[in-house]
């Protein structure tokens, strides 16, 4: 009994004092999916592989969209991406008030035409 009393008085609280102390994630914690849009080639493999159909890729208009509220962080899209533009971040996606706020839309740059590069015309 004395041992327990002394242990409780001298030791600190058993819980993590959140939010004063932030929670440390491990390097492989699955939080949310991020896309580096400059590297993306819009092949659509991630959209085909997603088991909850959260990712929608349109190749013609070069748009990549993810519905974060449908994503179950299974990591399949990150594993299948051929150019490794997708990555899994540690911090989870914070809650939002409306369903539309969970959708993230990204648009890629326009494709550089080969003839313009050869003639030396201005490239944007």
């Amino acid at each position, binding site marked *: 009994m004395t041992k327990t009393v002394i242990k409780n008085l001298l030791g600190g609280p*058993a819980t993590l004092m959140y939010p004063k102390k932030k929670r440390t*994630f*491990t390097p*492989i*914690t*699955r939080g949310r999916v991020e896309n580096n849009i400059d590297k993306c080639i819009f092949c659509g493999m991630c959209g085909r592989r997603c*088991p909850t159909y959260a990712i929608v890729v349109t190749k013609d208009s070069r748009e990549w969209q993810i519905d974060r509220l449908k994503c*179950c*962080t*299974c*990591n399949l899209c990150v594993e299948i991406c051929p150019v490794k533009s997708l990555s*899994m971040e540690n911090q989870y996606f914070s809650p939002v008030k409306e369903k539309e706020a969970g959708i993230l839309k990204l648009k890629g740059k326009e494709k550089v035409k080969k003839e313009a590069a050869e003639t030396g015309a201005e490239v944007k």
Partner: protein
Amino acid sequence: MAHKNVIPFGPQHPVLPEPIHFDLVTEDEKIVDALPSISYVHRGLERLIEKRDFIDFVHVADRICGLCSFMHSLGYSQAVEEIMGIEVPERALYLRTIWAELSRIHSHIFWLGVAADAFGFESLFMQSLRLREGVLDIFEATTGARVILGVCKVGGVRRDIDAETLKGIVNRLATLKKDLEEICSVFIDDYSIRHRLAGVGYISQQDAYTLGCVGPMARASGLSMDMRTIGYAAYKYLDVEPMVETTGDCYARCLVRIRETFQSIDLVRQAAGKIPEGPVDIKVKGTPNGEYFSRVEQPRGEVIHYAKGNGSRFLQRFRVRVPTFSNIPAMIKVLKGSEVADVPNIILTLDPCISCTER
């Protein structure tokens, strides 16, 4: 002439983690009959095989239940692999065993905490869940998620654990074992806990066998039944012995679960010592054509996964028979003749996992 009353128990009750309903027919505080009702969380998961092919379905199988999540994906992967004749590499078998035993440890510690809360010992509940956090941290460090692991797939496992992390896991479990011994000595020796559990909810060995009891409920009544002795995954290389008690009451079930937790810590240490090097998965070619019954020992008992394929990418039938479904008729037998005040205790020793029962 005693007056009969019908008292509804559930679906919302502080003691129940998930909704189930019993209509208790009582005569002056003694129960004479009980009628179970389920279907509060029926999601119809078995029809999702029409929409997701057999490789993606393992993610649905993971999400049948939160506490027994890894064992469902393990049973499903085993059923499909046996149909297709795939030989999983040895290292993957050992890794699956390690995660399965860690699953068992965290489920039993959670049960100890909820049982303590049921008979009013709230500080013991808090201490048990504090220990369980250690196991969930191990899950997060090795797979990336705490509850729904998503690490088993048809053909092996998706991640590897290197030798250093394995040693770290064994050391952390050794520290956990010391704290666990302190808590379990309270369960075993405390006078007031023994008063609430001993002699309550008795079922005989013969009744347990004919009524289809599985898991710790059967082992506490003297039946030596443990599916790990069949030798699936890496259990054929480890020595597993079913923990059997003969008394058949709530106290015996509590003892069986405590002993199984210590046995699992030892099994993880054995598996981490014997694990060979090699690949962790194998490429899957073709589609399943055939059927197979796969039996796995979950923390709550024996679970059967039945898969049937006819050559297309979608399975034809997938059925899960969970241990709680099999224990409910025995629970009715146990409830007859007990006092109304003991009902929450007795139903908790069944360890009901209703989201599995009603998939």
